């Protein structure tokens, strides 16, 4: 479980985050939405321990976060695969020294997660031989293989085409249901947030402007009336006009 207690962040004299408090329960998917520059990435980095908060604290499983740990794995925008390692070797990187697993158990776990992201046939391929979506799946498998408390995703699918994005969103839901990993996800994409999240956090002016619980069963239907309802709630929150909603083909 992740507890964010009154986290603030000041850059120079600029107050980016003005007291964020939030609880994420185990197995939940939280999506953070907000306009560009509102501090979404900053918040995620603070949760991951890659950035320190000015005041307040983040607690993961009763321990305050002071530096990155293997309990929360952050997925980098650039996927962060090691180009000199094959797919299976990339996934094995975090396992090699940590877990009390035998080599055989490691192999099994790598095989399991490769299967989960449907990359078993590509085990011996190198990252540069894979498409962007496949690289992203390797990165997800590598993070999951450690069986962390949570994974933190900063606009994970932003660089991918629509088809790949939809495919990976479904994959992520499937994987999350199997592994019940807690996921914190930053996104620009309102539909993505509604499609994936159990709870949406809207950040504005450095504060949580709204928390929206999405009470729809998964997998969700983007053309469903309830889905549309959540869109409208979010659009209203961002004070988008009726015209803009038409432009966005809502």
């Amino acid at each position, binding site marked *: 479980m992740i507890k964010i207690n009154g986290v603030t962040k000041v850059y120079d004299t600029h107050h980016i985050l003005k007291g964020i408090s939030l609880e994420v329960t185990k197995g939940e998917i939280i999506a953070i939405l907000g306009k560009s520059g509102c501090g979404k990435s900053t918040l995620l980095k603070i949760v991951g321990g*890659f950035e320190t908060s000015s005041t307040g604290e983040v607690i993961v499983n009763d321990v305050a976060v002071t530096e990155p740990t293997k309990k929360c794995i952050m997925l980098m925008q650039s996927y962060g695969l090691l180009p000199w390692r094959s797919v299976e070797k990339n996934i094995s990187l975090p396992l*090699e*020294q940590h877990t009390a697993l035998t080599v055989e158990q490691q192999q099994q776990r790598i095989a399991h997660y490769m299967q989960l992201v449907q990359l078993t046939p590509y085990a011996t391929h190198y990252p540069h031989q894979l498409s962007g979506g496949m690289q992203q799946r390797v990165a997800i498998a590598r993070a999951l293989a450690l069986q962390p408390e949570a994974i933190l995703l900063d606009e994970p699918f932003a660089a991918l085409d629509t088809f790949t994005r939809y495919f990976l969103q479904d994959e992520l839901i499937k994987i999350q249901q199997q592994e019940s990993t807690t996921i914190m996800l930053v996104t620009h994409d309102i539909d993505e947030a509604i499609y994936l999240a159990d709870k949406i956090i809207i950040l504005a002016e450095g504060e949580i402007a709204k928390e929206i619980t999405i009470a729809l069963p998964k997998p969700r239907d983007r053309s469903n009336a309830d889905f549309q309802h959540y869109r409208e709630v979010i659009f209203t929150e961002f004070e988008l006009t009726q015209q803009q909603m038409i432009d966005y083909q809502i």
Partner: protein
Amino acid sequence: MKLRYMIGSFTLLVVLWQLVVVVGNYEAALLPSPKQVAQALWSLFISGLLLEHISISLYRFGIGYILAVIAGITLGILLGRMPTVWRFVNPSVQLLRPVSPIAWSPFIVLFAGIGNLPAIIIIFIAAFFPILLATVTAVSKISPVYLQIAQNFELTPFAVVKKIIIPASFPAIMGGLQIALGSAWIFLVAGEMVGAQSGLGFLIIDARNALRLDLVFAAIIIIGLFGLLFNTIIQQISYRVTKQWGVQ
């Protein structure tokens, strides 16, 4: 390098050489013809002297170069990870680097006497700086993303060096190794002219003293061929590595 270009190029070189000999009508002692040099090479080979000189030279070269690789990469990784220390060390390195290893030869002979050691030291100096600089640059340019991942996965410092830093900087270090190989081989001959009584460099000095320019030429050809061979080998390794890494 394609083999047919290589053969074509060497043939052209020999033809030109022969042409200069014929047109210039030089005395054989002044400018030996390709045929005389070939004969000299053959006689060196038959007598066993050639292999003897080659093996002692390769031995010195191997020791000097490998020591430089070990020292250069180790120090390079340390200094590459300590930018502040490097800022203090770098000016002195830049001061020493352009000095020809031969300039040190008076000291080297004084401290190391004659024999294998002076040549080894000169080869070491020639190879060390390019490797050190390439390694420092490569290590300091490693993408912070890789180091963040290492931090996130809580890799031990040893694992970070072994699994992240060395492989991440390897393609760039390869470039330094290649430059160092060439420059060290150039200074092998110079090194053996300073304090040695054997080896390819000594062969040249010895032949010159005996006014046997055909032998001088023979030694030059062997030195050139080995230089070419080394360069081809390291280029191949470098090519394989970068191809597997998927970097350009």
